[in-house]
């Protein structure tokens, strides 16, 4: 297996590490979206709770 010259090899190695970085960042993005959904749901639940409390003893 002949070793590639450094500049050519460097591109492949960089590519591999970039793929890794990309996957981690994609995961972060997905988690960010999940967090946003959670926040939205929480806010709507908080509003619901306020409504309940304000609207009398329903629960």
């Amino acid at each position: 297996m002949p070793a590639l010259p450094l500049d050519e090899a460097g591109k492949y190695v960089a590519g591999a590490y970039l793929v890794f970085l990309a996957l981690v960042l994609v995961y972060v993005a997905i988690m960010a979206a999940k967090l946003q959904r959670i926040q939205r749901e929480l806010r709507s639940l908080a509003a619901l709770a306020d409504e309940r409390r304000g609207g009398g003893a329903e629960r």
Partner: protein
Amino acid sequence: MRGLRTLSAATVATVVAGFALVFFYAPLDADQGFIQKIFYLHVPLAIAALVGFMVAAVHAIRHLRTNDPVHDARSYVSIHISVIFGVAVLVTGSIWARASWGKWWVWDEPTLVSFLIVFLLYATYYPLRYAIEDRDRQARYASVFAITAGAFVPLNFLAVRLAESLLHPRVFATAEGGMPGSMWLTFGVSLLGIGLLWLTLVRFELVAKDTSAQLSRLRRALEGSPRPVPAGGESRPSTPQPAPDLQANRAV
């Protein structure tokens, strides 16, 4: 979840240290040259994924024993993160193959081929779960699958390795053969970092699922639904975006 902060900090530190060692400390490999550096990423990812599949099997066994949905969640998330790592393993492996042999895939590397088969198997975990609607049966069958697949992994590696050595004598040695201490150190730190990354992502995902489940409970409680609040609060495993959650109860 406690400890998640410490865990993620440790992960950052170790992974960065590992990568620093890879590029500033580890010596250049005599045969493969700079390409060999991919191994410090590719192999730890593979080890983490495979160990992750084994861990999932252990959680699955505990789930079947105790019927506690917590173990099912851990099993599911372990497989999920390991499958994602698996994608990284296959892509980095392909890049390495291209750099070493000029082709984007080689059938000569038994570890890579075995990994492909394992990956294809665990990829079927998702359609299996989605196809079963009843929550309890879904979790139970998923655990059965995780255990079966866990038993399969070593068998698969044995068969593929045997096939390669008997049919195609191994001409290419991997980076493991005769590595100097500095390479081992680099490899060790990278392995530790990737392993910690796996743990962090699993914990992270579990917290997210637990939060969603708690929110579902809260919503049901507030809306006064006649459905009893499930103990443990574990609802259908959340799917990765953008696939919609197929369960009837409102997902977060």
